[in-house]
């Protein structure tokens, strides 16, 4: 029985500290900079984005930390010619097999969320929900280090329990992204 894992993000708790990005880079040994592309920040499996709404004096800024959505029907998996990307039956995590990736970059064209990232070796890499930590019974690095507790994760059922009674939205899309966003109070 598939127990799809998903992220829940509460933008009211995010203080834009980028600790999730840094923890992700540390845990997955991602280079902070890429020599081949001066000025870039290297592969970012998790990214904090800034959204602005309204106009002065009623302007607001939101910070949203996003990574791979571990979609129910991932475009990247369907587009990968070598079968390097797969969706685990037991928890729905979309993983890639580094030994099978040929580095054609087609997944980066197909993904609607910019999740597939490329390192200096030209091969695709992406969030795997810190599988190593999950297998040890620990939380993913981004969830564990989030200072405001804005990033949460769990099975879809658990997330449904958490958002009960609160206004929340699920990111809609043809690929069935597994990302839930709490609305501002």
């Amino acid at each position, binding site marked *: 029985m598939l127990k799809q894992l998903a992220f829940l993000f509460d933008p009211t708790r995010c203080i834009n500290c980028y600790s999730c990005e840094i923890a992700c880079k540390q845990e997955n040994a991602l280079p902070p900079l890429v020599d081949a592309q001066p000025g870039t920040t290297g592969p970012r499996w998790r990214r904090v984005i800034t959204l602005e709404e309204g106009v002065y004096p009623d302007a607001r800024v939101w910070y949203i930390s996003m990574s791979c959505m571990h979609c129910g029907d991932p475009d990247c998996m369907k587009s990968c010619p070598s079968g390097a990307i797969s969706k685990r039956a037991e928890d729905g995590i979309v993983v890639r097999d580094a030994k099978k990736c*040929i580095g054609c970059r087609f997944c980066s064209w197909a993904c609607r969320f910019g999740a597939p990232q490329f390192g200096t070796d030209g091969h695709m890499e992406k969030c795997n929900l810190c599988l190593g930590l999950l297998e040890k019974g620990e939380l993913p690095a981004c969830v564990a280090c989030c200072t405001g507790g804005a990033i949460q994760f769990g099975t879809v059922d658990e997330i449904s329990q958490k958002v009960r009674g609160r206004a929340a939205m699920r990111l809609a899309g043809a690929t069935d992204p597994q990302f839930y966003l709490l609305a501002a109070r």
Partner: protein
Amino acid sequence: MLDRLHLGPAEAGAVFVRSPHYHRESEWPLIIYTVSLQSAVGTLIGGLFWTRLGRMMLENLVLTLALGAIGMLGAIGHVSSPLRAPRAILNWRCSWLSREILLSVAFVGMVFLAGLIYLLPDLVGSASDLSALVADGLRVLAGLTGLALLGAMSMSYLVPTRPVWNHHDTSASFYAGAFQLGWVVSAALLFVRVQRIEAAPLVLIACGLIVLTLLRIYIILRVVERLRGLNVYRDQPHSWLTGRTRQIRIILAVVGGVVAPLFSVAVIFLPETFSATVTEGIWIIAALLLFVGEGIDRWVFFEASPAVIFPPRF
């Protein structure tokens, strides 16, 4: 003022802030792969028309194979792990890229096999009509595979994240480009192979190229019209498409695909020995101009393809 200057992305970037969607795809290997494979398919199909005129089956197969091989080298240059490239055909059930690669290999393989079977009687030292017949059948099969390949090739680019590509005119561009290039390359080969050709076939070949070129230009203009609405930032597709790059591309198409064939028809009235050489030269130059034009078109295709994703790339 700036519109009148026809700024391309490089110049525009210096003046305006780059759009958050801008993401360059420097895809030289893909340009080589797509243009070469397209022209290989077109050359083979064109060759099927001219076989009776020039008896140049072998030359046509060799040229098709050479173009196909260049294309395959381009494809290998595109991937980061060429040694793992054979894996690329494994996901053919749902990946258009996988189907494209599978069809590319099948196409080039069939062309190679057709040439080998055609040469077999000479290699073993016996006369046989059967080998020519089998080779002919394989050529037709390879032609059909090539048509399917062009479809798969264009389908690979119909992805929702790239509105510039995600339209049926991408498929139309790939097919029209293949037929135009194939027509001019196979015709040039015919004129090199057959020194003197009758006026009627020459006029027919020239008219064919003009029609295909007008079709190609019509598709280019349709793409420009469609992308007008997508041009949000100064460094976005429309500035490329209406700029100097596109003007050069259309001039090359007109000179190579309209002026050159008309000129080659006019040359018929020159003395025979002179006209054959001039005709040959004109068609070779026309083929080169159209190749460069298609290359520019593909370069713009990859360069001006902003990714529309959530969140925007930054």
